[in-house]
């Protein structure tokens, strides 16, 4: 499989999700929720589908989605009202989009004009014109002719417009309880032994029903086909409790064999528009058989003159009238169908529809459910390791069977944990794959030559982390393209090749995933960064910072070195967003720059968000845990081996290197331990390979813990990454090494 196919597969998966999202959103929109959040979600979904389609050259889909998007944009701006008709059109359009996506997936061609009708209506709606009638006469599948039709239409034309006005009348109240149903059966409906009368009977059980026949399609007598279908109906159903779903359920069996629109209307708006088209005599409805024998020989049959009412219809009408007075107290509630088609016309979408249902090879599971499993597995792993620890030597000798059982349990729980983690893991490819396009666009806009190299796309990370990765990566690559890479002229002058390189890589390093964005550009202009930082008060005027500290300033909130804001990197929001996004998912960012040679930004992300390998330590009398991934080594030391530095801090010399010392006892204000006591040093590595020595009272051992959020259960504390519950039921806090380290200088400044 080529890379392109991979990307396409990702795109199609994404489309499946977006289409499902659309369906969800419209389910609410249909029920009257027109909040901006929903409209924005719909807009984003269509926009994303269009974007991907453009990348792969699915021009039909792009064109259609564009028209759809344009309308949505107008709606968002408030220029176009989202009438029930427009909603119905959108829902129909969602199916068309799905058909396009499906056709692209199986590489078949849809007809040239597929969706052209809806597309046209989008364009007209967006331009502020009223949508056309739901049921265009041309779609009628019987080949009937002129004589009668012409007359009927000539009469119908004017009123039809008026009727439309009634439908398009100002924003409708969400629940008027009056439903206008247009129903035009096709021949197949009768061929399958369905009977409109029975449908009406069922509708009548939902509320007060008025039935009017529409005979505008009746041909000349000579042109009547034995199995032709010439009668359609317009029905008005009044019931304060009935839902569109209930109404559509009545038509469930004839879906695809008729044209159907169900629209809720304002009671007042109804009366002027409808009658002209119809025979306004609900209790004397004509039937096909009645029309035949008594029609005039000339073949001109007035549509509005039924010879005799069909008995069953009369009975129905009577029943309906009779029921009208006692309704709707006894209307039985109907169960909502689990799945339903939400298009306005029940035209069959045909094969693509069927396959669309079967096309997805995966199931969608609520992340919460997976998280629950992850958490429980985490607890299981911990309990298991606790059990193992409690087996002392005498027990081991005495209960060998038990020991063996525990070993198997250990293996199984490990396997279970890996499997559960694998459910959440996805290759970073799904995010990386969006970047080449970004790089191309950036190169065009900045008039620079940029080559994007990607390494390690198959590295897998937790799904939540992946989702949070897209924005930061986009910002980082924009930053590199905009500020890092120089123009071709500058590069040539500096003796570099014309084309700048941005390298995006992912790799697993211990319990972390490292994602690195590096470029071979000019590097960070430290003088300028420092100057801006001082101007904005991010850094005190007299504060001395190392090169590395200056580099990190680009992540400070609201910081931007560019005087004239560019279109690309944005408006000084960007790099600080990167930092906050990454922190949110338990990661960290580090930047390193070499003047004239380039910049490297490293994201360090946790492999998983749920379970952590830690070292359990004791500070004063309290247990703390330190993530194993940040520990370099541990050692025993006498307190005297620390040296004081002029700033008031302490350092420890480790193999010739001076390391900042943080005494957790002091830092967490747990009292001062006696000087002569032997204590332990846990040497940790913070960002950028900077080491820091944490002093603890005792080292208890290694284990795995399930992370419990402190923010959710208490509040955020500097230097603490979270909490956990130990095997013996005690709560231990998780030390945030990076947080401790960066908190220190601020204390000094304050």
């Amino acid at each position, binding site marked *: 499989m080529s890379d392109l196919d991979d990307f396409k597969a990702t795109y199609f998966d994404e489309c499946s999700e977006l289409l499902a999202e659309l369906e969800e959103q419209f389910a609410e929109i249909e029920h009257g929720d027109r909040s901006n959040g929903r409209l924005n979600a719909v807009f984003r979904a269509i926009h994303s589908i269009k974007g991907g389609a453009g990348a792969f050259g699915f021009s039909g889909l792009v064109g259609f989605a564009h028209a759809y998007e344009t309308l949505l944009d107008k709606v968002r701006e408030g220029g176009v009202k989202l009438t029930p008709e427009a909603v119905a059109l959108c829902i129909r359009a969602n199916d068309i989009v799905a058909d396009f996506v499906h056709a692209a997936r199986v590489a078949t061609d849809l007809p040239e004009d597929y969706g052209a009708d809806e597309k046209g209506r989008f364009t007209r709606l967006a331009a502020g014109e009223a949508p056309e009638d739901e049921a265009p006469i041309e779609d009628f599948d019987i080949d009937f002719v002129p004589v009668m039709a012409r007359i009927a239409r000539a009469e119908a034309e004017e009123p039809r417009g008026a009727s439309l006005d009634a439908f398009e009348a100002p924003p409708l109240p969400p629940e008027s309880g009056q439903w206008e149903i247009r129903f035009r059966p096709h021949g197949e409906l009768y061929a*399958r*032994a369905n009977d409109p009368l*029975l*449908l009406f009977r*069922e509708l009548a059980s939902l509320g007060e029903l008025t039935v009017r026949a529409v005979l505008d399609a009746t041909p000349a007598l000579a042109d009547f086909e034995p199995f032709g279908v010439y009668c359609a109906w317009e029905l008005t159903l009044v019931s304060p409790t009935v839902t569109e779903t209930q109404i559509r359920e009545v038509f469930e*069996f004839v879906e*695809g064999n008729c044209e159907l629109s169900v629209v809720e209307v304002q009671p007042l708006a109804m009366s002027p528009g409808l009658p002209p088209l119809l025979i306004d005599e609900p209790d004397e409805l004509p039937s096909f058989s009645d029309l035949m024998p008594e029609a005039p020989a000339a073949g001109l049959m007035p549509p509005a003159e039924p010879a005799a009412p069909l008995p069953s219809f009369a009975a129905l009408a009577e029943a309906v009238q009779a029921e009208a007075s006692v309704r709707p107290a006894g209307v039985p509630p109907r169960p909502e169908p689990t799945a339903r088609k939400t298009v306005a016309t029940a035209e069959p979408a045909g094969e693509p529809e069927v396959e669309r*249902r079967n096309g997805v090879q995966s199931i969608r599971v609520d992340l919460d459910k997976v998280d629950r499993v992850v958490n429980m597995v985490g607890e299981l792993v911990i309990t298991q390791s606790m059990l193992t620890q409690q087996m002392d030597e005498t027990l081991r000798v005495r209960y060998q069977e038990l020991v063996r059982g525990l070993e198997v349990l250990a293996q199984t729980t490990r396997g279970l944990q890996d499997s559960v983690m694998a459910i959440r893991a996805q290759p970073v490819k799904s995010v990386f794959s969006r970047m080449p396009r970004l790089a191309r666009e950036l190169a065009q806009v900045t008039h620079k030559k940029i080559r994007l190299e990607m390494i390690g796309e198959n590295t897998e990370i937790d799904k939540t982390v992946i989702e949070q990765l897209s924005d930061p990566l986009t910002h980082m690559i924009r930053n590199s393209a905009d500020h890092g890479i120089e123009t071709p002229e500058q590069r040539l002058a500096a003796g570099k090749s014309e084309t700048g390189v941005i390298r995006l890589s992912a790799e697993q390093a211990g319990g972390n995933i490292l994602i690195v964005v590096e470029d071979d550009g000019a590097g960070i202009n430290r003088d300028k960064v420092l100057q801006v930082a001082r101007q904005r008060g991010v850094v005190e005027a007299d504060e001395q910072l190392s090169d590395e500290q200056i580099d990190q300033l680009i992540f400070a909130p609201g910081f931007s070195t560019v005087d004239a804001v560019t279109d690309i990197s944005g408006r000084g929001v960007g790099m600080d967003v990167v930092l906050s996004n990454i922190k949110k998912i338990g990661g960290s960012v580090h930047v390193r720059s070499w003047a004239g040679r380039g910049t490297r930004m490293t994201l360090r992300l946790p492999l998983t968000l749920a379970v952590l390998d830690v070292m359990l330590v004791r500070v004063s009398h309290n247990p703390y845990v330190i993530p194993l991934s940040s520990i370099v080594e541990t050692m025993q030391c006498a307190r005297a081996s620390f040296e004081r530095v002029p700033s008031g801090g302490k350092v420890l010399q480790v193999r010739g290197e001076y390391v900042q010392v943080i005494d957790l006892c002091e830092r967490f204000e747990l009292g001062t331990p006696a000087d002569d006591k032997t204590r332990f040093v846990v040497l940790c590595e913070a960002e950028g390979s900077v080491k820091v020595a944490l002093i603890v009272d005792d080292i208890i051992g290694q284990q795995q813990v399930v992370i419990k959020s402190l923010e959710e259960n208490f509040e955020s504390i500097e230097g603490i990454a979270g909490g956990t519950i130990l095997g013996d039921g005690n709560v231990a806090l998780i030390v945030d090494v990076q947080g401790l380290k960066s908190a220190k200088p601020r204390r000094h400044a304050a």
Partner: protein
Amino acid sequence: MRVLTVDDSRTILAMLHHTLSNAGFEVLQAEDGQRGLDVLAREKVDVVITDINMPVMDGIEFIKHVRSSGAHQSLPILILTTETSQDKRDQGRAAGGTGWIVKPFDPEKLISVIHRVVH
């Protein structure tokens, strides 16, 4: 009112019989499509309920045969289907099925569906 039930599962036939006769229907039974046609040839029925997967003659063929004979063009035929076999359901509709009943059916729903297709 007479209902012809066609299914190779004795359990389903028995359940249909129980539900339908309790609701006042007269119930005829056939174990496959061919036998269903035999029943239709000699008995007058008001509605047919048929399974799809059956030996000898499956439900789709059965429906096609029923519809092709002039006498039964307006005979309502309900297809027994499951949530997961929508393609079968669609095939059944294409062959001339009037509506469908999703297995496992609840008695009330079954009766209301029959009333939806029978006068």
